[in-house]
Every structure is written in structure tokens, then in C-alpha cells.
């Protein structure tokens, strides 16, 4: 069973066959600790996440809002390293070979690991793709050189500021899916105006065959349903991360997996109840 880009492609093909959009869920790896974090990850898939984005903690997450910043610091305090993130994915693969896992984070931890060795170790651990927030098309060569041959997808981010002229450069060598950052801002802030997002998604579809996931600011089942009607997938991150945080604040970190399962079930319900792009 081939992983990497192939696993992502298979998942989106089966979503298409089901006639629905997918739910992409983000949590920070090892938040609030390695053991609980692994249980949280397992719950995501069981509760209906179609793709898992696993955040690699970084001390200086410049594109993230307070919730994900704090999650990263909790994970770092719990001793999470890149090696441990890969171990977590390897463990997850023992019980789940279908759900794509995409690591999301910043370039420096990958650069410190060594891009070539990282691509090899990530695919071997069962990672399928990467989202590297601060690696734009202009700088991606030094990583794509290793991820492409390894079969690891490098998911490109498209922003509202990405012009029509620039779009081909951004999506030109993309793989897996495209991630449309629906707002100009950081994670965990207000949701986008859907009427503004629709034409942007149409523009991206015209430039690429890849599925388009819509993220940033989507928190509720209702919002997820609304965006699922125009995208191939919706991404929810901060809202889930805040469930983990609430468990910690309540002095009951062990309840984080249950809290996450409850929210993700509702989100999955929202996405599954939505009209599909094909039907609309």
C-alpha cells in the first residue's frame, strides 16, 4: 500500500466517489504531552477526519495565532522533537494505513534535520505530505529536490494576495492538494466571507487539477458545511487545539482525546451534510 502523495490521491479520489468534501483536522503533535497527543491523533481519524495535519511545534510560529502558539510551547515543554513526531506517525500507521498524514510547520526544524534525510525518514515513517508555511515557491527548490523523488507531497499554500499572474508559479509543481488560506491573517481568527472565497477557489481550480482545501478561521460544523460546499475539503485547526487546551486548563489533560472526538464528530457531520461542489 503506497503512502506519500499516492495515499493523499487515493483519499481524495474516494471522497469524490462518495460525492462529498473532506474534513482536514489539525492538531499540534505531542500536545499536551506525547502519550495524550498520540491518543488525540488516533481519535481524529476515528471521529471522521479524512486527512490529519500534524503540527510540528516551533518556537517562533509567525503565521499562527495564540491558540496554536501555546500548543506548540506545551508540546516543546513536553519534549517533542522532530524525531518524536515521526515516531508518533510510525505508531499511528500500525493501526491506520488509509488516513493521510501531512506534517505542517516551519522550515527551520526541517532544515536543521537536513532536508534530504528528513524526506527519507518522513516517508519511511508513514508521512504523506508536508506543508511548510515559510517556504514559498521562490525558495522551495531546496526541499522539493528531495520530497518529490521520495514520493512525499509538498502541499502549496495559496493566499488571497496571490495574484492571477503568480498563481501558476505557486501551483506549478504542487502535489497532494492545494491549501487555500481563506483570510489574510493568522490561524484561529475570524472566518472568511464565503462570497469572497468562492471566486478565489474557482480561480485556483482553473489553474490546477489538484483538490482544493479551504482553511483558516473555520471553527464550527455550520462553517465547515458552508465551506465544504465550495471546496474539496475544509481545514479546522485552532478550534480543535483549543479543546486540548481546555482539557489542560480544567486540570484534566487525559480528557483531551474525548473532547477532540466530540468536536471532530460534529465537524464531520457538518461536512458530510453539506452540498458537494459537484452537486452545486
Amino acid at each position: 500500500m503506497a503512502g506519500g502523495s499516492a495515499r493523499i490521491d487515493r483519499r481524495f479520489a474516494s471522497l469524490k466517489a462518495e460525492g462529498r468534501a473532506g474534513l482536514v483536522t489539525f492538531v499540534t503533535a505531542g500536545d499536551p504531552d506525547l502519550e495524550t497527543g498520540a491518543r488525540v491523533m488516533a481519535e481524529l481519524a476515528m471521529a471522521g477526519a479524512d486527512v490529519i495535519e500534524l503540527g510540528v511545534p516551533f518556537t517562533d510560529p509567525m503565521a499562527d495565532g495564540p491558540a496554536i502558539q501555546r500548543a506548540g510551547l506545551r508540546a516543546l515543554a513536553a519534549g517533542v522533537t522532530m524525531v518524536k513526531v515521526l515516531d508518533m506517525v510510525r505508531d499511528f500507521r500500525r493501526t491506520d494505513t488509509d488516513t493521510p498524514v501531512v506534517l505542517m510547520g516551519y522550515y527551520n526544524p526541517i532544515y536543521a534535520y537536513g532536508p534530504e534525510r528528513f524526506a527519507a525518514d518522513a516517508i519511511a515513517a508513514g508521512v504523506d505530505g508536508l506543508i511548510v508555511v515559510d517556504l514559498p515557491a521562490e525558495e522551495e527548490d531546496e526541499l522539493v529536490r528531495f520530497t518529490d523523488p521520495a514520493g512525499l507531497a509538498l502541499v502549496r499554500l495559496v493566499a488571497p494576495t496571490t495574484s492571477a499572474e503568480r498563481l501558476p508559479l505557486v501551483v506549478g509543481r504542487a502535489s497532494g492538494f492545494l491549501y487555500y488560506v481563506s483570510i489574510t491573517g493568522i490561524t484561529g481568527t475570524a472566518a472568511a466571507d464565503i462570497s469572497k472565497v468562492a471566486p478565489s477557489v474557482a480561480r485556483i481550480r482553473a489553474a490546477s487539477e489538484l483538490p482544493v482545501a479551504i482553511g483558516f478561521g473555520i471553527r464550527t460544523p455550520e462553517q465547515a458545511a458552508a465551506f465544504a460546499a465550495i471546496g474539496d475539503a475544509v481545514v479546522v485547526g485552532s478550534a480543535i487545539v483549543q479543546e486540548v487546551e481546555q482539557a489542560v486548563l480544567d486540570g484534566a489533560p487525559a480528557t483531551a482525546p474525548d473532547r477532540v472526538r466530540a468536536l471532530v464528530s460534529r465537524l464531520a457531520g457538518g461536512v458530510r451534510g453539506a452540498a458537494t461542489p459537484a452537486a452545486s
Partner: protein
Amino acid sequence: MSHTPNTFRAGPDEHGRFGLFGGRFVAETLMPLILELEQAYDAARRDPSFAAEMALFQRDYVGRPSPLYLAERLTEHLGGAKIYLKRDELNHTGAHKINNVLGQLLVAKRMGKKRIIAETGAGQHGVATATMCARLGMDCVVYMGDTDIVRQKPNVFRMRLLGAEVRGVSSGTATLKDAMNEALRDWVSNVDDTFYCIGTAAGPHPYPMMVRDFQSIIGEEARAQVLEREGRLPDLLVACIGGGSNAIGLFHPFLDDPAVRMMGVEAAGHGIDSGAHAASLAGGTPGVLHGNRTYLLQDADGQIQNAHSISAGLDYPGIGPEHSWLRDIGRVEYTAITDDEALDAFKLCARLEGILPALEPAHAVAQVIKTAPTLGRDAILVMNMCGRGDKDVFTVAEALGVDL
């Protein structure tokens, strides 16, 4: 970057690289903005009216050229090289920072931007930005780590008097790097009307180049002044380094003069071996942060480590990418000075020359104290006095155990 053997001044290349260093490691949302800035800066550079407007401000508002002052008593005390101080602490707002802010804000004005954001450590860049915003009628928001707000109260009040909003940053280590993170978050959230005025020669291309160009007036003036006074170029240039903007400003016009040695002085804090320092070159490795590849203080896993220096302006875990390149090719020597050495130099400079250096250039003074005696009496040394010490009297008093 394939630098031609006869010049060290051609960088960066079209990708914003100085060899391995520099680049444009920013989120896609910001990429179009920095490309737009690059075009706007390029157009400004080619427009004589831009240079003319800047020259007028430099002369009548900033107070340039700053003097090149022969520090006779310091020279005599050390018994070696003739020591000249480039007096950029006499600029309006008390530091070199305004050279860069003036240039960037005139570019912002051309771009039609009305809202300016900045990060600040010691507060000098924040004060300079607040000052120019007041003068040009622009809105100003300055991000400053909570730790630095405590350390630099007078500058916080100054910024508010100038009409700026100072936003405290409590995330991470609550110092300069976190203020920069927060400024980037603001910028990505306000892409339509906001201009990010970065305070040092770091960040994504074109910032390191642009900031260097605006600060190069220091070296250009010093070069003309020393030639006029001495009839020859200096043997040694010395400047302190946090992000490295005052140093690159002094060094750059001299890079192609092989006889001119240069020393960049980082902050060794409690000592490089203590782990509590801000010396990215002495104690760091190449990595990617804040839009550029450069030497960083980081652990083996690529997590950024806290910097420490008694001087808030040097308290940054990175350094401008051009310095990283100049270090690797060996054109510039980089050293480090501890908190204690800087404090001793602060006191000596005050007593002998009647000049209170800011704690940042006090590091450069400390290096001069070490190096000048090793040079002959006919050697000429130029040190950049890039800021005045008024802002630091409370910090110095505390360090010396004096209760004000």
C-alpha cells in the same frame, strides 16, 4: 552568490541571497507584498527626487553628517591606535536607527501606505519610527516585548508622546524576536494598508539590502571624513552587532578596500560558554527565521534559543544575512564582548570622553579597549558610536548596584 573577486559589495543576487544566506522565507500571503516592496524600492532608488528629499531630511531633521570625533583621551589612555568615533548618537532620536526609518518611510509614502508597524528591542528603532511617523503624518504601531518594556521605560513613554501605539508582546520570550513575530502577524492580517518598517538589516529580501543601503550613509560619511582628516583610509573599523545594521552601514562602503580591517562585535552576555549570550556567529549555526537564512542561536532540533544581553538592542538570536556571508568568506572578523566588559567600557568612555555610550556601542568600545593597544600609534581606528546611553542609565545603575 558568485561574487566577482574584485568586489564584496555586489550582493545580494536576484534571489536576495548573499551566498547561502538571505532569501525570502515568508508565507505566501506576504510574498506578493515583499515583491511589491522590492519594485517600489527599486523605483525609488532610480528617482533623483527620492534622494533629494532624503538628503534634505538627513541634513535638517536628522542632523547629518554626524561628526567624526578624535577621542584623544581614550587614545592616550589605551596607548595605541588613534581612535575616532563616528558620532551617530548625535542624530535626532539618539541612534543610527533613524537613517533607516527615514528611508523606509519615504518608500512607504511613495507606495501610499498610511499605517506603519515596527518591532523594537531597546526602543531606539521604535522611537525613530514613531518620530518619522509623527513627522510624515502616518499611523504608527510598535511591537515591543514585555521584558523590554520593563527594561526601557523611558523609550516606551517617548513613543507614546510621539503618538505611537506601543503593543506589549508576552508570547515566547517577550523580547525582540517575539516582537518581530507579532509584527509579522500584524502585517499578514493588514496587507492592504500597512507597511512593515524592519529595524535591522535582516528579514526577507529586500530588507537586508534596503536597510544596509540606508545605513551606508554612516560609512560613506566616515570614509570622506577620515580621508579629509588623515589623508588615508583607516586601518580598522569597529561596530557592535545585534541584527547588524549599524555595522553593515559602516562597513559596506569599505568592503572593497583590502587594507581596511573590520570587526563586528556581538554580545557575549554572561559569556559564550554560559549559554546566556546573543552571539549568533560565535555560538550559532545557519538556520531560517524571520524570512531569511542566517546564523541563529538554536538547538539541534531547530528550535530558536533565547538570547541574552544586558543591552536590549543586541538581544536577538539572529543576525543580518550579509554578516553571515562576510563571516563565512572571512572578509570581516567577528568577536564577542560580555556584559561586564561592556559595563566597564561604558564607565571608561563616560569618564575619559564625557560621552555616555548606549550599552550596544559600549560593546564596541570594549573591543576598542582590547584592540587599540595592540596596534601602533600610527594606526587609525574608526568606531561607530551608534547610540547614546541616556536610555540605559537605569539598567547601568541596577547592574552597578546603585538605587536611583
